Protein backbone atom coordinates (compact mmCIF):
# COMPACT_ATOMS: atom_id res chain seq x y z
CA UNK A 1 0.00 0.00 0.00
CA UNK A 2 2.87 2.34 0.87
CA UNK A 3 4.36 2.07 -2.60
CA UNK A 4 0.97 2.86 -4.16
CA UNK A 5 0.74 5.95 -1.95
CA UNK A 6 4.23 6.90 -3.05
CA UNK A 7 3.61 6.56 -6.80
CA UNK A 8 0.30 8.43 -6.37
CA UNK A 9 2.13 11.36 -4.82
CA UNK A 10 4.77 11.23 -7.53
CA UNK A 11 2.06 11.26 -10.16
CA UNK A 12 0.35 14.30 -8.64
CA UNK A 13 3.52 16.32 -8.34
CA UNK A 14 4.52 15.56 -11.92
CA UNK A 15 1.11 16.39 -13.34
CA UNK A 16 0.89 19.56 -15.37
CA UNK A 17 -2.71 20.26 -14.43
CA UNK A 18 -1.71 20.20 -10.79
CA UNK A 19 1.07 22.65 -11.53
CA UNK A 20 -1.43 24.89 -13.27
CA UNK A 21 -3.82 24.80 -10.35
CA UNK A 22 -1.06 25.55 -7.89
CA UNK A 23 -0.08 28.55 -10.01
CA UNK A 24 -3.33 30.07 -8.73
CA UNK A 25 -1.58 30.47 -5.41
CA UNK A 26 0.23 33.43 -6.99
CA UNK A 27 -2.95 35.33 -6.14
CA UNK A 28 -1.78 35.40 -2.53
CA UNK A 29 0.60 38.16 -3.59
CA UNK A 30 -2.31 40.44 -4.41
CA UNK A 31 -4.39 39.74 -1.34
CA UNK A 32 -2.92 42.42 0.98
CA UNK A 33 -3.43 45.18 -1.58
CA UNK A 34 -6.97 44.07 -2.45
CA UNK A 35 -7.81 43.82 1.24
CA UNK A 36 -6.68 47.40 1.83
CA UNK A 37 -9.85 48.50 0.02
CA UNK A 38 -11.79 47.59 3.12
CA UNK A 39 -12.88 50.45 5.37
CA UNK A 40 -12.82 48.89 8.76
CA UNK A 41 -11.44 45.37 8.49
CA UNK A 42 -8.38 45.05 6.30
CA UNK A 43 -6.93 42.09 8.18
CA UNK A 44 -10.30 40.39 8.33
CA UNK A 45 -10.78 40.87 4.61
CA UNK A 46 -7.34 39.53 3.81
CA UNK A 47 -8.11 36.49 5.98
CA UNK A 48 -11.40 36.07 4.12
CA UNK A 49 -9.70 36.31 0.76
CA UNK A 50 -6.86 33.97 1.77
CA UNK A 51 -9.16 31.31 3.17
CA UNK A 52 -11.48 31.52 0.19
CA UNK A 53 -8.57 31.22 -2.20
CA UNK A 54 -7.32 28.16 -0.33
CA UNK A 55 -10.81 26.71 -0.38
CA UNK A 56 -11.18 27.32 -4.09
CA UNK A 57 -7.80 25.82 -5.01
CA UNK A 58 -8.43 22.80 -2.82
CA UNK A 59 -11.86 22.27 -4.35
CA UNK A 60 -10.28 22.21 -7.79
CA UNK A 61 -7.57 19.85 -6.60
CA UNK A 62 -10.05 17.56 -4.85
CA UNK A 63 -12.40 17.28 -7.80
CA UNK A 64 -9.62 16.99 -10.33
CA UNK A 65 -7.53 14.48 -8.41
CA UNK A 66 -10.37 12.49 -6.89
CA UNK A 67 -12.36 12.17 -10.06
CA UNK A 68 -9.55 11.55 -12.49
CA UNK A 69 -7.19 9.24 -10.61
CA UNK A 70 -9.22 6.02 -10.80
CA UNK A 71 -11.01 7.03 -13.97
CA UNK A 72 -7.71 7.75 -15.74
CA UNK A 73 -6.17 4.51 -14.50
CA UNK A 74 -9.03 2.59 -16.08
CA UNK A 75 -9.26 4.75 -19.18
CA UNK A 76 -5.55 4.52 -19.93
CA UNK A 77 -5.54 0.81 -19.06
CA UNK A 78 -3.06 1.21 -16.22
CA UNK A 79 -5.36 -0.97 -14.15
CA UNK A 80 -4.60 -4.06 -16.26
CA UNK A 81 -0.97 -3.96 -15.27
CA UNK A 82 -1.38 -2.76 -11.71
CA UNK A 83 -4.34 -4.90 -10.66
CA UNK A 84 -2.65 -8.04 -11.99
CA UNK A 85 0.06 -7.52 -9.43
CA UNK A 86 -0.57 -9.21 -6.09
CA UNK A 87 -2.50 -6.16 -4.86
CA UNK A 88 -6.09 -6.40 -3.78
CA UNK A 89 -8.39 -3.89 -5.35
CA UNK A 90 -9.29 -2.35 -2.01
CA UNK A 91 -5.60 -1.91 -1.18
CA UNK A 92 -5.14 -0.23 -4.51
CA UNK A 93 -8.14 2.07 -4.05
CA UNK A 94 -7.24 2.96 -0.48
CA UNK A 95 -3.60 3.49 -1.44
CA UNK A 96 -4.65 5.85 -4.19
CA UNK A 97 -6.99 7.64 -1.78
CA UNK A 98 -4.37 7.97 0.95
CA UNK A 99 -1.89 9.34 -1.57
CA UNK A 100 -4.34 12.05 -2.59
CA UNK A 101 -5.37 12.71 1.02
CA UNK A 102 -1.74 13.16 2.06
CA UNK A 103 -1.26 15.43 -0.91
CA UNK A 104 -4.26 17.54 0.16
CA UNK A 105 -2.66 17.99 3.57
CA UNK A 106 0.65 18.96 1.96
CA UNK A 107 -1.19 21.44 -0.27
CA UNK A 108 -2.98 22.82 2.81
CA UNK A 109 0.39 23.26 4.52
CA UNK A 110 1.83 25.07 1.52
CA UNK A 111 -1.22 27.25 0.86
CA UNK A 112 -1.68 27.85 4.57
CA UNK A 113 1.87 29.17 4.88
CA UNK A 114 1.27 31.53 1.97
CA UNK A 115 -2.00 32.64 3.57
CA UNK A 116 -0.35 33.25 6.94
CA UNK A 117 2.30 35.43 5.30
CA UNK A 118 -0.28 37.53 3.45
CA UNK A 119 -2.49 37.86 6.56
CA UNK A 120 0.53 38.83 8.63
CA UNK A 121 1.52 41.51 6.11
CA UNK A 122 -2.00 42.93 6.13
CA UNK A 123 -2.16 42.91 9.93
CA UNK A 124 1.17 44.71 10.24
CA UNK A 125 0.04 47.50 7.93
CA UNK A 126 -3.47 47.81 9.36
CA UNK A 127 -3.70 46.24 12.80
CA UNK A 128 -7.04 44.46 13.29
CA UNK A 129 -9.56 45.52 15.92
CA UNK A 130 -9.07 42.25 17.75
CA UNK A 131 -5.79 40.33 17.91
CA UNK A 132 -5.53 37.56 15.34
CA UNK A 133 -6.36 34.06 16.52
CA UNK A 134 -3.68 32.09 14.68
CA UNK A 135 -4.91 28.85 16.17
CA UNK A 136 -8.33 29.41 14.62
CA UNK A 137 -6.79 30.29 11.26
CA UNK A 138 -4.65 27.15 11.19
CA UNK A 139 -7.48 24.94 12.44
CA UNK A 140 -9.77 26.38 9.81
CA UNK A 141 -7.27 25.51 7.06
CA UNK A 142 -6.80 21.98 8.42
CA UNK A 143 -10.55 21.40 8.58
CA UNK A 144 -10.88 22.80 5.09
CA UNK A 145 -8.42 20.13 3.95
CA UNK A 146 -10.45 17.45 5.76
CA UNK A 147 -13.59 18.68 4.03
CA UNK A 148 -11.97 18.35 0.63
CA UNK A 149 -10.61 14.93 1.52
CA UNK A 150 -14.24 13.88 1.97
CA UNK A 151 -14.93 15.31 -1.50
CA UNK A 152 -12.00 13.25 -2.81
CA UNK A 153 -13.41 10.10 -1.21
CA UNK A 154 -16.84 10.76 -2.71
CA UNK A 155 -15.54 11.41 -6.20
CA UNK A 156 -13.26 8.35 -6.10
CA UNK A 157 -16.18 6.19 -5.06
CA UNK A 158 -18.24 7.57 -7.92
CA UNK A 159 -15.32 6.86 -10.26
CA UNK A 160 -15.30 3.18 -9.26
CA UNK A 161 -18.67 2.68 -10.95
CA UNK A 162 -18.46 5.24 -13.72
CA UNK A 163 -17.14 4.70 -17.20
CA UNK A 164 -16.71 8.41 -17.92
CA UNK A 165 -15.40 11.25 -15.81
CA UNK A 166 -18.69 13.15 -15.92
CA UNK A 167 -20.22 11.33 -12.99
CA UNK A 168 -17.20 11.67 -10.69
CA UNK A 169 -16.52 15.30 -11.60
CA UNK A 170 -20.04 16.69 -11.61
CA UNK A 171 -21.25 14.26 -8.98
CA UNK A 172 -18.51 15.42 -6.63
CA UNK A 173 -19.23 19.08 -7.29
CA UNK A 174 -22.98 18.58 -6.72
CA UNK A 175 -22.42 16.59 -3.56
CA UNK A 176 -20.00 19.24 -2.37
CA UNK A 177 -22.52 22.02 -3.02
CA UNK A 178 -25.30 20.03 -1.38
CA UNK A 179 -23.02 19.09 1.51
CA UNK A 180 -22.36 22.71 2.38
CA UNK A 181 -26.06 23.49 2.75
CA UNK A 182 -27.56 20.33 4.30
CA UNK A 183 -27.30 21.87 7.75
CA UNK A 184 -29.06 25.06 6.63
CA UNK A 185 -31.84 23.05 5.03
CA UNK A 186 -32.09 20.85 8.11
CA UNK A 187 -32.33 23.91 10.36
CA UNK A 188 -34.90 25.51 8.09
CA UNK A 189 -37.09 22.41 8.08
CA UNK A 190 -37.23 22.57 11.85
CA UNK A 191 -38.63 26.09 11.91
CA UNK A 192 -42.38 26.41 12.55
CA UNK A 193 -42.97 28.14 9.22
CA UNK A 194 -41.38 25.25 7.34
CA UNK A 195 -43.33 22.72 9.37
CA UNK A 196 -46.46 24.34 8.00
CA UNK A 197 -45.26 24.96 4.44
CA UNK A 198 -43.37 21.79 3.57
CA UNK A 199 -45.15 18.48 3.27
CA UNK A 200 -44.22 15.61 5.54
CA UNK A 201 -42.98 13.45 2.66
CA UNK A 202 -40.54 16.09 1.46
CA UNK A 203 -39.38 16.63 5.02
CA UNK A 204 -38.72 12.90 5.31
CA UNK A 205 -36.81 12.85 2.03
CA UNK A 206 -34.76 15.85 3.12
CA UNK A 207 -33.99 14.12 6.40
CA UNK A 208 -32.76 11.04 4.54
CA UNK A 209 -30.53 13.25 2.38
CA UNK A 210 -29.30 15.05 5.48
CA UNK A 211 -27.93 11.83 6.89
CA UNK A 212 -26.79 10.49 3.52
CA UNK A 213 -24.88 13.51 2.23
CA UNK A 214 -21.72 14.69 3.91
CA UNK A 215 -22.40 17.53 6.34
CA UNK A 216 -19.62 19.83 5.24
CA UNK A 217 -21.01 22.87 7.05
CA UNK A 218 -19.29 21.74 10.22
CA UNK A 219 -15.88 21.93 8.57
CA UNK A 220 -16.31 25.58 7.66
CA UNK A 221 -14.55 27.49 10.43
CA UNK A 222 -13.85 30.58 8.35
CA UNK A 223 -15.92 32.89 10.55
CA UNK A 224 -13.90 31.84 13.58
CA UNK A 225 -10.64 32.40 11.75
CA UNK A 226 -11.62 35.74 10.21
CA UNK A 227 -13.18 37.37 13.28
CA UNK A 228 -11.03 35.65 15.91
CA UNK A 229 -14.00 33.90 17.49
CA UNK A 230 -12.87 31.18 19.91
CA UNK A 231 -13.36 27.60 18.71
CA UNK A 232 -15.36 24.95 20.46
CA UNK A 233 -12.89 22.18 21.19
CA UNK A 234 -15.52 19.55 21.76
CA UNK A 235 -17.22 20.49 18.52
CA UNK A 236 -13.93 20.18 16.67
CA UNK A 237 -13.36 16.76 18.16
CA UNK A 238 -16.82 15.64 17.11
CA UNK A 239 -16.24 16.99 13.61
CA UNK A 240 -12.96 15.08 13.46
CA UNK A 241 -14.66 11.83 14.43
CA UNK A 242 -17.43 12.56 11.93
CA UNK A 243 -14.75 12.99 9.26
CA UNK A 244 -13.18 9.62 10.06
CA UNK A 245 -16.50 7.81 10.14
CA UNK A 246 -17.88 9.36 6.96
CA UNK A 247 -14.67 8.85 4.99
CA UNK A 248 -14.51 5.28 6.27
CA UNK A 249 -18.05 4.57 5.10
CA UNK A 250 -17.55 6.15 1.68
CA UNK A 251 -14.25 4.40 1.03
CA UNK A 252 -15.64 1.02 2.17
CA UNK A 253 -18.53 1.38 -0.24
CA UNK A 254 -16.00 2.41 -2.91
CA UNK A 255 -13.86 -0.64 -2.20
CA UNK A 256 -16.88 -2.97 -2.42
CA UNK A 257 -17.95 -1.46 -5.72
CA UNK A 258 -14.43 -1.47 -7.12
CA UNK A 259 -13.94 -5.14 -6.22
CA UNK A 260 -16.98 -5.98 -8.34
CA UNK A 261 -15.90 -3.87 -11.27
CA UNK A 262 -14.90 -5.73 -14.43
CA UNK A 263 -11.72 -4.62 -16.15
CA UNK A 264 -12.74 -5.04 -19.78
Amino acid at each position, binding site marked *: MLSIVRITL*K*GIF*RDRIFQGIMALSLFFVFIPSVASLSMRQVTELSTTLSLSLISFIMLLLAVFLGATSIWKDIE*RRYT*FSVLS*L*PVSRSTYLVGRFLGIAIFMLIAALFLGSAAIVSIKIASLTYPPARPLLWFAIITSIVFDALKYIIVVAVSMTLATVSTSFFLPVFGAISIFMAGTVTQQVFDYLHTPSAQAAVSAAIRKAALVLYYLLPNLGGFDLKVHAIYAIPLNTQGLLLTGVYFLAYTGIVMSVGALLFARRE*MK
Partner: protein
Amino acid sequence: MKAIETTGLCKQFKGKKMTRVDALKSLDLQIEKGEVFGFLGPNGAGKSTTIKLIMGLLKPTAGTASIMGKDSSTTDSRRQVGFLPENPAFYDYLSAEEYITFVGSQFSMESSLLKRRTEDVLKRLDLWEARKRPMRGYSKGMVQRVGLAQTLVHDPDVYILDEPMSGLDPIGRALVKDIILDLKRRGKCVFFSTHITDDVEKVCDRVGVIVKGSLVAVDRVENIMRSGVEGYLVHLRFQDSASRNFAGIEPLRTAGSTSEFYVSCSAFNAFMGEVNAAGVEVALVETKRRDLEDFFLSLVNKP
Protein backbone atom coordinates in the same frame (compact mmCIF):
# COMPACT_ATOMS: atom_id res chain seq x y z
CA MET B 1 -0.90 -29.16 -9.37
CA LYS B 2 -1.05 -27.47 -12.75
CA ALA B 3 0.64 -24.18 -13.43
CA ILE B 4 -2.56 -22.83 -14.95
CA GLU B 5 -5.90 -24.55 -14.92
CA THR B 6 -9.38 -23.62 -16.03
CA THR B 7 -12.51 -25.72 -15.64
CA GLY B 8 -15.73 -24.97 -17.43
CA LEU B 9 -14.71 -21.34 -17.67
CA CYS B 10 -17.52 -19.24 -19.19
CA LYS B 11 -17.85 -15.54 -19.78
CA GLN B 12 -20.90 -13.68 -21.01
CA PHE B 13 -20.89 -10.00 -21.81
CA LYS B 14 -23.92 -7.81 -22.04
CA GLY B 15 -24.33 -6.87 -25.67
CA LYS B 16 -26.47 -4.23 -27.25
CA LYS B 17 -30.24 -4.30 -26.79
CA MET B 18 -30.19 -6.62 -23.79
CA THR B 19 -28.58 -9.44 -25.74
CA ARG B 20 -25.84 -11.51 -24.22
CA VAL B 21 -22.65 -12.38 -26.00
CA ASP B 22 -20.79 -15.55 -25.15
CA ALA B 23 -17.17 -14.49 -25.19
CA LEU B 24 -16.01 -17.80 -23.78
CA LYS B 25 -17.84 -21.13 -23.74
CA SER B 26 -16.80 -23.63 -21.10
CA LEU B 27 -13.04 -23.61 -21.46
CA ASP B 28 -11.06 -26.48 -19.97
CA LEU B 29 -7.34 -25.97 -20.05
CA GLN B 30 -4.42 -27.42 -18.18
CA ILE B 31 -0.95 -25.98 -18.53
CA GLU B 32 1.85 -27.91 -16.91
CA LYS B 33 4.75 -26.42 -15.04
CA GLY B 34 7.76 -25.92 -17.24
CA GLU B 35 5.66 -25.87 -20.37
CA VAL B 36 5.55 -23.23 -23.09
CA PHE B 37 1.98 -23.00 -24.32
CA GLY B 38 0.90 -21.01 -27.35
CA PHE B 39 -2.67 -19.76 -27.31
CA LEU B 40 -3.67 -19.21 -30.91
CA GLY B 41 -6.79 -17.63 -32.23
CA PRO B 42 -8.04 -14.98 -34.60
CA ASN B 43 -8.86 -11.51 -33.30
CA GLY B 44 -11.93 -11.52 -31.06
CA ALA B 45 -11.80 -15.27 -30.45
CA GLY B 46 -11.63 -14.88 -26.68
CA LYS B 47 -7.87 -15.04 -26.02
CA SER B 48 -7.71 -11.83 -24.01
CA THR B 49 -10.93 -12.65 -22.19
CA THR B 50 -9.46 -15.99 -21.11
CA ILE B 51 -6.29 -14.31 -19.90
CA LYS B 52 -8.19 -11.59 -18.00
CA LEU B 53 -10.30 -14.27 -16.34
CA ILE B 54 -7.15 -16.13 -15.30
CA MET B 55 -5.66 -12.91 -13.96
CA GLY B 56 -8.81 -12.06 -12.02
CA LEU B 57 -9.44 -8.87 -13.98
CA LEU B 58 -12.80 -10.26 -15.04
CA LYS B 59 -15.19 -12.41 -13.01
CA PRO B 60 -16.21 -15.66 -14.70
CA THR B 61 -19.92 -16.18 -15.43
CA ALA B 62 -19.32 -19.84 -14.58
CA GLY B 63 -16.39 -22.13 -13.95
CA THR B 64 -13.08 -21.49 -12.25
CA ALA B 65 -9.55 -20.52 -13.11
CA SER B 66 -6.44 -20.93 -11.03
CA ILE B 67 -2.72 -20.27 -11.12
CA MET B 68 -0.43 -22.68 -9.26
CA GLY B 69 -3.49 -24.13 -7.57
CA LYS B 70 -4.72 -20.79 -6.25
CA ASP B 71 -8.09 -19.53 -7.39
CA SER B 72 -7.92 -16.49 -9.65
CA SER B 73 -10.31 -14.52 -7.47
CA THR B 74 -7.66 -14.35 -4.74
CA THR B 75 -4.82 -11.85 -4.53
CA ASP B 76 -2.54 -14.77 -3.68
CA SER B 77 -3.00 -16.34 -7.10
CA ARG B 78 -1.01 -13.48 -8.60
CA ARG B 79 2.07 -13.99 -6.41
CA GLN B 80 3.65 -16.57 -8.71
CA VAL B 81 2.96 -14.93 -12.02
CA GLY B 82 4.40 -12.33 -14.34
CA PHE B 83 1.70 -10.82 -16.53
CA LEU B 84 2.06 -8.80 -19.70
CA PRO B 85 -1.26 -7.24 -20.78
CA GLU B 86 -2.15 -6.74 -24.42
CA ASN B 87 -0.87 -3.34 -25.65
CA PRO B 88 0.31 -2.56 -22.14
CA ALA B 89 0.23 0.93 -20.63
CA PHE B 90 2.02 1.95 -17.48
CA TYR B 91 1.96 5.11 -15.37
CA ASP B 92 3.50 7.34 -17.96
CA TYR B 93 4.85 9.85 -15.46
CA LEU B 94 7.17 7.20 -14.02
CA SER B 95 10.44 6.13 -15.56
CA ALA B 96 11.03 2.50 -16.50
CA GLU B 97 13.32 2.10 -13.52
CA GLU B 98 10.75 3.54 -11.11
CA TYR B 99 8.01 1.35 -12.48
CA ILE B 100 10.04 -1.86 -12.37
CA THR B 101 11.03 -1.01 -8.80
CA PHE B 102 7.38 -0.41 -7.96
CA VAL B 103 6.40 -3.80 -9.41
CA GLY B 104 9.17 -5.54 -7.51
CA SER B 105 8.06 -3.91 -4.26
CA GLN B 106 4.56 -5.28 -4.82
CA PHE B 107 6.09 -8.76 -4.77
CA SER B 108 7.80 -7.88 -1.47
CA MET B 109 11.25 -8.26 -2.97
CA GLU B 110 14.15 -7.46 -0.73
CA SER B 111 15.59 -4.09 -1.79
CA SER B 112 19.17 -5.01 -2.73
CA LEU B 113 17.92 -8.01 -4.72
CA LEU B 114 15.32 -5.78 -6.37
CA LYS B 115 17.98 -3.27 -7.32
CA ARG B 116 20.12 -5.95 -8.91
CA ARG B 117 17.23 -7.62 -10.71
CA THR B 118 15.94 -4.27 -11.99
CA GLU B 119 19.31 -3.55 -13.52
CA ASP B 120 19.42 -7.06 -15.05
CA VAL B 121 16.04 -6.91 -16.74
CA LEU B 122 16.45 -3.34 -17.96
CA LYS B 123 19.74 -4.26 -19.58
CA ARG B 124 18.32 -7.48 -20.95
CA LEU B 125 15.49 -5.60 -22.64
CA ASP B 126 17.70 -2.81 -23.89
CA LEU B 127 16.08 -0.16 -21.72
CA TRP B 128 19.13 0.72 -19.65
CA GLU B 129 19.88 3.95 -21.53
CA ALA B 130 16.28 5.17 -21.25
CA ARG B 131 15.65 4.00 -17.68
CA LYS B 132 15.56 7.48 -16.10
CA ARG B 133 13.21 9.05 -18.64
CA PRO B 134 9.46 9.19 -17.98
CA MET B 135 7.66 6.53 -19.98
CA ARG B 136 5.41 9.09 -21.68
CA GLY B 137 8.29 9.67 -24.07
CA TYR B 138 8.74 5.98 -24.92
CA SER B 139 7.98 4.39 -28.28
CA LYS B 140 5.41 1.59 -28.50
CA GLY B 141 8.15 -1.01 -28.73
CA MET B 142 9.89 0.37 -25.67
CA VAL B 143 6.68 0.24 -23.63
CA GLN B 144 6.20 -3.37 -24.77
CA ARG B 145 9.72 -4.16 -23.56
CA VAL B 146 9.00 -2.47 -20.21
CA GLY B 147 5.98 -4.77 -20.07
CA LEU B 148 8.22 -7.79 -20.49
CA ALA B 149 10.76 -6.46 -18.02
CA GLN B 150 8.12 -6.11 -15.32
CA THR B 151 7.10 -9.75 -15.76
CA LEU B 152 10.68 -10.89 -15.31
CA VAL B 153 11.86 -8.77 -12.41
CA HIS B 154 10.55 -10.96 -9.60
CA ASP B 155 11.48 -14.20 -11.42
CA PRO B 156 8.09 -15.95 -11.08
CA ASP B 157 7.39 -19.55 -12.13
CA VAL B 158 4.49 -18.69 -14.41
CA TYR B 159 4.40 -16.14 -17.21
CA ILE B 160 1.20 -15.05 -18.87
CA LEU B 161 1.87 -12.90 -21.90
CA ASP B 162 -0.92 -11.40 -23.99
CA GLU B 163 0.42 -10.79 -27.51
CA PRO B 164 4.05 -10.40 -26.42
CA MET B 165 5.31 -9.83 -29.96
CA SER B 166 2.93 -7.07 -30.95
CA GLY B 167 4.41 -3.67 -31.50
CA LEU B 168 7.93 -5.02 -31.76
CA ASP B 169 10.36 -4.77 -34.63
CA PRO B 170 12.13 -7.93 -35.89
CA ILE B 171 14.99 -7.41 -33.44
CA GLY B 172 12.51 -7.09 -30.60
CA ARG B 173 10.67 -10.23 -31.70
CA ALA B 174 13.89 -12.17 -31.81
CA LEU B 175 14.68 -10.91 -28.32
CA VAL B 176 11.30 -12.03 -26.99
CA LYS B 177 11.67 -15.49 -28.56
CA ASP B 178 15.07 -15.69 -27.02
CA ILE B 179 13.69 -14.77 -23.61
CA ILE B 180 10.88 -17.33 -23.87
CA LEU B 181 13.33 -20.08 -24.88
CA ASP B 182 15.56 -19.09 -21.98
CA LEU B 183 12.60 -19.32 -19.57
CA LYS B 184 11.77 -22.74 -21.04
CA ARG B 185 15.34 -23.91 -20.39
CA ARG B 186 15.01 -22.73 -16.81
CA GLY B 187 11.85 -24.81 -16.40
CA LYS B 188 9.37 -21.93 -16.24
CA CYS B 189 5.83 -22.07 -17.53
CA VAL B 190 5.01 -19.60 -20.27
CA PHE B 191 1.45 -19.13 -21.49
CA PHE B 192 1.20 -16.67 -24.33
CA SER B 193 -1.44 -15.66 -26.78
CA THR B 194 -0.80 -14.72 -30.37
CA HIS B 195 -2.38 -14.74 -33.77
CA ILE B 196 0.94 -15.26 -35.51
CA THR B 197 1.62 -18.97 -36.02
CA ASP B 198 5.26 -18.51 -36.78
CA ASP B 199 5.90 -17.45 -33.17
CA VAL B 200 4.31 -20.62 -31.88
CA GLU B 201 6.17 -23.01 -34.12
CA LYS B 202 9.55 -21.85 -32.96
CA VAL B 203 9.10 -21.76 -29.20
CA CYS B 204 6.05 -23.70 -28.05
CA ASP B 205 5.73 -27.18 -26.61
CA ARG B 206 2.00 -27.20 -27.00
CA VAL B 207 -0.54 -25.11 -28.76
CA GLY B 208 -4.24 -24.48 -28.22
CA VAL B 209 -6.46 -22.96 -30.83
CA ILE B 210 -9.49 -20.95 -29.79
CA VAL B 211 -12.18 -19.91 -32.25
CA LYS B 212 -15.35 -17.99 -31.34
CA GLY B 213 -14.97 -18.64 -27.65
CA SER B 214 -14.38 -22.40 -27.90
CA LEU B 215 -11.17 -24.35 -27.74
CA VAL B 216 -11.05 -26.30 -30.99
CA ALA B 217 -7.70 -28.03 -30.70
CA VAL B 218 -4.94 -28.65 -28.19
CA ASP B 219 -1.87 -30.61 -29.24
CA ARG B 220 1.89 -30.80 -29.05
CA VAL B 221 3.54 -28.74 -31.76
CA GLU B 222 5.64 -31.74 -32.92
CA ASN B 223 2.48 -33.84 -33.42
CA ILE B 224 0.93 -31.14 -35.52
CA MET B 225 4.12 -30.89 -37.54
CA ARG B 226 4.32 -34.66 -38.01
CA SER B 227 0.69 -35.14 -38.89
CA GLY B 228 0.98 -32.34 -41.34
CA VAL B 229 3.56 -34.14 -43.59
CA GLU B 230 2.00 -34.72 -47.00
CA GLY B 231 4.99 -35.82 -49.11
CA TYR B 232 8.57 -35.16 -50.07
CA LEU B 233 10.39 -33.23 -52.75
CA VAL B 234 13.35 -35.35 -53.87
CA HIS B 235 16.20 -33.88 -55.89
CA LEU B 236 18.23 -36.48 -57.83
CA ARG B 237 21.55 -35.92 -59.63
CA PHE B 238 22.22 -38.19 -62.65
CA GLN B 239 25.68 -39.11 -64.01
CA ASP B 240 24.32 -39.39 -67.52
CA SER B 241 22.18 -36.55 -68.62
CA ALA B 242 19.12 -38.74 -69.26
CA SER B 243 16.45 -38.40 -66.56
CA ARG B 244 14.22 -41.31 -65.79
CA ASN B 245 11.05 -42.27 -63.95
CA PHE B 246 11.14 -44.15 -60.65
CA ALA B 247 8.17 -46.14 -59.36
CA GLY B 248 6.16 -44.51 -62.12
CA ILE B 249 6.76 -40.98 -60.86
CA GLU B 250 7.81 -38.41 -63.40
CA PRO B 251 10.13 -35.48 -62.57
CA LEU B 252 8.44 -32.11 -61.96
CA ARG B 253 11.28 -30.35 -63.74
CA THR B 254 14.85 -30.95 -64.86
CA ALA B 255 17.70 -28.49 -64.83
CA GLY B 256 21.00 -29.75 -66.18
CA SER B 257 21.82 -33.05 -64.52
CA THR B 258 19.34 -32.69 -61.62
CA SER B 259 15.66 -33.50 -61.57
CA GLU B 260 12.98 -32.77 -58.90
CA PHE B 261 10.34 -35.37 -57.99
CA TYR B 262 7.26 -34.95 -55.82
CA VAL B 263 6.74 -38.19 -53.90
CA SER B 264 3.69 -38.76 -51.67
CA CYS B 265 4.18 -40.36 -48.22
CA SER B 266 2.77 -43.73 -49.35
CA ALA B 267 4.98 -43.96 -52.45
CA PHE B 268 8.13 -42.83 -50.69
CA ASN B 269 9.57 -46.26 -49.77
CA ALA B 270 9.02 -47.77 -53.23
CA PHE B 271 10.48 -44.66 -54.89
CA MET B 272 13.60 -44.64 -52.74
CA GLY B 273 14.07 -48.40 -53.28
CA GLU B 274 14.25 -47.92 -57.04
CA VAL B 275 16.52 -44.88 -56.72
CA ASN B 276 18.92 -46.89 -54.55
CA ALA B 277 18.84 -49.84 -56.89
CA ALA B 278 19.70 -47.57 -59.84
CA GLY B 279 22.58 -46.07 -57.86
CA VAL B 280 21.39 -42.50 -58.52
CA GLU B 281 22.75 -39.82 -56.18
CA VAL B 282 20.15 -38.16 -53.89
CA ALA B 283 21.03 -34.48 -53.77
CA LEU B 284 18.26 -33.25 -51.39
CA VAL B 285 15.07 -34.44 -49.68
CA GLU B 286 12.58 -31.73 -48.60
CA THR B 287 9.55 -32.47 -46.45
CA LYS B 288 6.39 -31.10 -47.98
CA ARG B 289 3.84 -30.45 -45.27
CA ARG B 290 1.06 -28.22 -44.21
CA ASP B 291 2.63 -25.78 -41.78
CA LEU B 292 1.04 -24.56 -38.55
CA GLU B 293 -0.55 -21.70 -40.40
CA ASP B 294 -2.38 -24.06 -42.73
CA PHE B 295 -3.38 -26.11 -39.71
CA PHE B 296 -4.62 -23.02 -37.97
CA LEU B 297 -6.48 -21.72 -41.00
CA SER B 298 -8.11 -25.08 -41.58
CA LEU B 299 -9.45 -24.99 -38.00
CA VAL B 300 -10.59 -21.40 -38.17
CA ASN B 301 -12.31 -21.79 -41.51
CA LYS B 302 -14.06 -25.00 -40.53
CA PRO B 303 -17.82 -24.40 -40.96
